[in-house]
Structures are given as structure tokens and as C-alpha cells.
């Protein structure tokens, strides 16, 4: 029994180390863009505290950066990586800016950034579908 438990534990650790596929990485990118979007909207409606919003945006930014770095190695051929890259960098910068605007309580600029973020998100979603298609 104890042996089995150790086995399970080691399994879970290898699980943590297992390199994710490109489409999985795309999913988590979308997930983090969505997080930034939702947190942003909530903040505009004055329903979440500033500190939480800023931290979450920063977290999203860092995660996007991290995943983005790994992504382009594992990207399958035939995917428009150039537009993906630009979309990612742009949205990343926007998220970082939004985090700053939260402290300045600058809602108007924040809203414009949020909208452009939304646009990038839809673009990434389309690219994600193409990645998935390529992977099959």
C-alpha cells in the first residue's frame, strides 16, 4: 500500500513535469486572456478590489509570458505564428498597462485596452482552432 502511494506521488510529480502540447498551451493562453478580461470587466463594474485586480492582471501577464516562450518551439508547421506572436505580445503589453491603470483608477483608458484585448482574444481563439486542426 505504501509503495502504491509513493508510486502515485511520483506519478503526480512527473505529471507536473510532462511537457504540454501546443493546443494545450493555446488553451491555457486563452484561459489567461479570459482571466484578464473577466477581472478587468469586474473591476470596471467596481465589484472587485483594486489590489486583487492588479495582482490578477500581473499574474495573467506573467503566465502569458511564460507560456508564450514555450509555445513557439512546439508550434506545428503551417500555423500563422507571426500574427499569433504579434497578438500575444500586444495583449501582454495591454494587460501590463491595465495593471498600472488600476492604481491610477483610470477607467476610460482601461476600457479601451480591455476592448482591444477582447479583439486579440478572438484572434487567438481562431489560431488555437487552426493549431488543433494541424495537430490532428
Amino acid at each position, binding site marked *: 500500500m505504501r509503495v502504491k*502511494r509513493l508510486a502515485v506521488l511520483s506519478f*503526480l510529480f512527473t505529471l507536473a513535469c510532462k511537457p504540454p502540447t501546443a493546443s494545450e498551451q493555446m488553451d*491555457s493562453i486563452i484561459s489567461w*486572456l479570459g482571466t484578464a478580461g473577466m*477581472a478587468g470587466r*469586474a473591476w470596471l463594474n467596481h465589484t472587485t478590489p483594486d489590489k486583487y485586480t492588479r495582482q*490578477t492582471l500581473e499574474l495573467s501577464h506573467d503566465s502569458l509570458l511564460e507560456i508564450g516562450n514555450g509555445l513557439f518551439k512546439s508550434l506545428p508547421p503551417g500555423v500563422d505564428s507571426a500574427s499569433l506572436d504579434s497578438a500575444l505580445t500586444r495583449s501582454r503589453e495591454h494587460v501590463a498597462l491595465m495593471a498600472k491603470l488600476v492604481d491610477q483608477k483610470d477607467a476610460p483608458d482601461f476600457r479601451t485596452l480591455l476592448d482591444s484585448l477582447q479583439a486579440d482574444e478572438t484572434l487567438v481563439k481562431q489560431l488555437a482552432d487552426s493549431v488543433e486542426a494541424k495537430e490532428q
Partner: protein
Amino acid sequence: MKKILQLTLGIVTSVGGFLEIGSVTTAAQAGARFGYQLLWVILLGTVCLIFLIEMAGRLAAVSKHTIVDAMRERFGFPFFFFVLIGMVIVAFLVLVAELGGIAFALQILTGIRFPWWALPVSLLVWLLMWKGTFSLIENGASLLGLVTISFVVAAFKLGPDWSSVGASLVPTLPDSDKANYGFIAVSILGASISPYLMYFYSSGAIEDKWDRSYIPMNRIIAGSGMTFGGFLSMAVLVAAALALRPKGLQVDTFPQAALLMTTALPRWGFYLFALSMLFACFGAALEISLAIAYFFAQGFGWNWSEDLQPSQDARFAFVYTIIILLAAVPLMLRVDPIKVTMVSMALTSATLPLAIVPFLFLMNDPLYLGKHRNGWISNTVVAIVILLSFVLAVISIPLQIIGG
């Protein structure tokens, strides 16, 4: 009247044991990834738990033994010690996760990072154990835990499509991502069927001095309490499926989970989530610390009661003091509570047989239960729990590694 009050035991057991960081995160992940599809696992877990909890209460009411008492007596010290090691390791991990849940809830409320909260939180939990009485913990936790009803409100306000909700109570397999599906299913089972619940509940029955006259009440308590908990975590899953899934959100971190109710309840959603996690995890933390201390005290035959002064049951108090303080350490070292949660939930269901097989023997022991022994229905359910949890764990965890 006293027996009616006993309902709180059921509710605290469920709020503390059922709805805690484990079930919230697993349910939220399930909803965000697979929509309603995993609802059936929560239903299954709830049904199994109702049976197990009822048995734990019956054993205590009839034989005046807690599960641990009986296990030590029947199976002797060596076997008991083996189970002790296993249970304490898993329960400790869960305790770390719960303290992490409290700390994280405080982080999103205050903006102060969770490692800073780890020590104050564990000290507060310890203080309540040190000063509080059993009924204080019982009733306090269950009252505060009622905040978690907000999950149900949120789920309803998002207007789920009831027909598909109902349909998902029947097991189905997803077209893709099967490994992940299995892994989350295992974690949900681990989150709902946690052995420490049974130890806590049977000890609670002894602390509340149950006798045979409680057998019918015990059924009601177990049934209603666990159903309550089950509903809550189903509500979490539904809310996640409706609020997070469309945005493609995966609940990998706590701040993401915090967005669960912001769409359903714009004004209060965020704070209600934070408070719910705060209270639910707090109840769970108390319950697990008590369960661990009970396990030692009963197994070794020490004095034990949450109502005694610490010095009257020094070894009992010593155990929970050590455990609670130790649990703060990994968090201060910035270990991610969500990761701990997922690991501990999967471990719980993998080690379930260790806790439940001896329990099956005890529940059929004529010397303890006389004519109140398990019937074939209960025995079948227990057998199913053992097989299911273990098989699921052994199959899906490797699958998860290979990647389906």
C-alpha cells in the same frame, strides 16, 4: 430537541468536510473544462458518503466505539499503526490545502500574499481548538458555513439548462481529453469521500453521547447533511460551467476561481466567494486537525475530548498543536495550495481502501453492532466505493501522465 440540534453535526461535517477547497476547486475545474459532464461523479460521491457517514454514526451509537477504537481493538496495534501513518500523511496534506484556502481567501480580500497569512491563520485555528469547545466548533462552523449557500444562488441566477443538467447525472465519457477527465473525476471522489469525515463524525457522536435511540436521527443527519454538501459542490460545478467555461477559463489558480460568481452576482459575488472559501476552509481545517488528534488519542487510548482543558488531555492537545503549526510551514515556503489540493485529493481516493476495508469488517461485526449490522445493501455500497475509488485512481492517474 437536543437531537434536532444534532443536525448541526451533520451540517458542520458536510460544510467542513464536504465543501472545502478540495470540492470547490475540483468542482470548479470540472465545470470549467467539461461543462456539466462530471456532475454524476459528485452525485455518486455524495451517495457513497451518505452511506459511509450513516455507518460511522451507527457504529458509534450502538457500540460506543469510534471507528478508530474499534479498528485498534479488532485488528491490533501493527495494522492500526500502518493505517495511522497513511491516514495522517493524507490528512496532513489536506490540512495544508485548507489553511492555504483560508490564506488565499484573505489574499484576494486584502492583497497581502498568502504566505504571510499562513502562520496567523494556523495560529487562529489552533487558538480555537485550544480554547473552544466541541459544540462551539460544531455550531459556529455550521452557522458561518451557511454563507456557502451563495453558490446555489449564483448557479440559479445563471439560469442553467435543467434538462442537460439532469442528463449529466448519467455517467458519460468525453470525446477528447479522457485522461484529464478521469483525473478530475478521481479528485472529485477524493474530495467528497474523505475518510477523516468518518473519523470526525463518529468521534462527534461519542462527544455528543449518542446511544441506540439516535439511530433514526443519525440517518436523517447523515442524509440531510451530506445532501446539503453535495448540492453546494454541484452548484459550484454548474456556476463554473456557465460563468468560466464560455470564457475558456481553466481554474489553475485561486485568483481565477475567485471570478466564479462575479458574473452571476455582480455586486457581491466576489466577496461572497472569498467569505465562503474562508469559512468553509476554516471549518474543514478545524475538522481535520480534530480528526488527526482523535486518531492518535483513540488509537493509543489517551484521554480525548475537545471539551476538556488542554492539560486534562495533554497528549491530545499536544498532537493537534504540533500538526497545525507544521501545516503552516509548506505555505510559508510558497507551496501552491491548489497543487497540494489536487495531489491530496487524488491521494485520498487512492488510499481509500486502506480506510474503508477495515471499516467494512467492523460494520459486519456482530459483537459491536448485533442486529444493527450492515445489510447487504450497505455492504454492496461500501464494496463499490472501495473498487471504484481505487480502480479510478490506478487507471486515470497513469493515463494522465501518458496524456490519454
